[in-house]
């Protein structure tokens, strides 16, 4: 009998399988505001059923990018295709039926203050010309879906931030969209509420198979919910890939910067004692993915070289069902085993291994 390995860490679950046909395609999209290039030659695809995270610092062009996806912003150059149809040259009127296929949620919720939760949810249906009885029935179902069945008569001012965003999500889903756009939807919420909203979005992605493109400046959001991530810097795509891969092995410096607060780092007091002088213990940083992250690495090291390694710091988490580990390890080379051999062993197992330095006395 196979025993499933226990996963340690947060975000355990895999998003709905991706790799469907493209819902959105951007090809060479550029947009300038005055002298500043908000988007510079951006090419990307959002596939059916996937959750695409678009991340970057503020001013990186994320919001402009997501607003290009439903024609709220028009690119200066390049092409945007929604379900195969080019939208860049459509008039505002021609865009309207296409926009009804795309739901959008916002950082500040953007709910009508003088309409109740039900009326807000029903609004896209009213705009689509659906009769009142039918749209109110549907609004009830949607409020039920987002866990607010008893708050339909409440006005937005009577709801908490998390509840407002639930109403926003229900409203975005009302017209049964093919794509959901999320523009910093959790950025105005506290961490606990953020977790609940992301849980809801993940649930909707799985149950309805809804395609989601979300913009955020928080890597946690990407880790929790996205299957693929696009990293933007100064309007350009700096890096793109599956989330677990980008987390475990970031290629662009900007990605590493954005990830810094999420990945274990050597404690400051230890880092301060590192020197380049040989002697004492050598401190390695190891990034491991998949089976390598689960393997008893330090025991193997001890078995093979007869030396002991100490785990200083680090952790293992599961992203999209794959273990991703970062370990800080101190080893004392013996006369028989030199540093190069140990480094070679680590390099053979880890996606990345770095010798950070040496500490003379036991850290």
């Amino acid at each position, binding site marked *: 009998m196979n025993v499933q390995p226990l996963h340690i860490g947060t975000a355990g679950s895999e998003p709905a399988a991706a790799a469907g046909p493209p819902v959105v395609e951007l090809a060479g999209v550029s947009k300038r505001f005055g002298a500043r290039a908000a988007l510079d030659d951006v090419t990307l695809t959002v596939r059916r059923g996937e959750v695409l995270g678009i991340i970057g610092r503020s001013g990186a062009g994320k919001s402009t990018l997501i607003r290009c996806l439903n024609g709220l912003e028009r690119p200066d150059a390049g092409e945007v295709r929604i379900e195969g149809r080019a939208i860049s040259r459509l008039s505002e009127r021609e865009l309207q039926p296409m926009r009804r296929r795309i739901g959008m949620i916002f950082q500040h919720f953007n709910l009508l*203050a003088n*309409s109740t939760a039900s009326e807000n949810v029903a*609004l896209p249906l*009213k705009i689509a010309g659906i009769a009142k009885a039918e749209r109110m029935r549907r609004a009830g179902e949607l409020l039920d879906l987002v866990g607010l069945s008893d708050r339909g008569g409440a006005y937005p001012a009577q709801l908490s931030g998390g509840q407002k965003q639930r109403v926003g999500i229900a409203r975005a889903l009302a017209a049964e969209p093919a794509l959901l*756009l999320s523009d910093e939807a959790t950025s105005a919420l506290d961490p606990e509420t953020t977790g609940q909203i992301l849980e809801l979005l993940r649930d909707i992605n799985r149950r309805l198979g809804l395609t989601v493109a979300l913009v955020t400046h928080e890597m946690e959001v990407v880790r929790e919910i996205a299957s693929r991530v696009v990293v933007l810097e100064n309007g350009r795509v700096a890096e793109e890939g599956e989330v677990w891969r980008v987390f475990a092995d970031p290629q662009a410096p900007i990605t590493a910067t954005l990830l810094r607060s999420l990945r274990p780092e050597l404690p400051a007091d230890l880092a301060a004692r590192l020197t380049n002088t040989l002697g004492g213990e050598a401190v390695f940083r190891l990034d491991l993915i998949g089976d390598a992250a689960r393997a008893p690495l330090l025991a193997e090291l001890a078995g093979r070289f007869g030396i002991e390694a100490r785990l200083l710091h680090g952790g293992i988490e599961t992203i999209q069902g794959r273990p991703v580990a970062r370990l800080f390890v101190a080893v004392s080379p013996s006369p028989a085993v030199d540093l190069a051999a140990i480094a070679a062993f680590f390099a053979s197992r880890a996606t990345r291994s770095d010798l950070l330095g040496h500490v003379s006395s036991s850290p």
Partner: protein
Amino acid sequence: MSAHLLDLLLKATGETLLMTAASGLASLVFGLPIGLLLVVTSPGGVWPAPWTNRVLGTLVDAFRSVPFIILLVALIPFTRLVVGTSIGTSAAIVPLSIAAIPYYARIAEVSLREVDSGLVEAVRAMGGSRWALVREVLVPEALPSLVAGFVVTLITLIGATAIAGAIGAGGLGDLAIRYGYQRFQTEVMLAVVVVLILLVTILQKGGDALVARLDHRR
């Protein structure tokens, strides 16, 4: 106060109310759409049209910059064309309306401009037409503020009706001038002031209560 004076007071109150209500209605019917046009045609508006916006804005300001007493006289030929006479209560309604329309148009414009642009964007994003943006977002979201501005307009109109007395429009102001001032009947003057205070207070309190019922922003 004699029964005769009481009759005069009642009649004058009726005339003031009629003039205020009629020109108030005109300001609502014509001023609100003009205010809407000013907002939607402005740069960054729902339907930007720089030239329409500029011409309309200039026209509105031109009428607003003419003092009411001058407008009253200058419009006499137009008034005669519309109501057949240039004196009396119904004649006064024409210049009062012409003054009130641009006044309320600007007040409505300010109210409509205050609507969070994020709401307009949200409804654009769900495929709303320009008409839907006006009907579903701009007007309902600005409604409490539009009502409050309308109350201000009505109270301003009550003041303006007194000036309309100059063309024989009657009304409370006219009564106060002719009896209270020119005939030294101080009690008429006082009675008119009390009635005016009552009218304004009732309007303002009623308006405030209505606004509170319409406003769900807090």
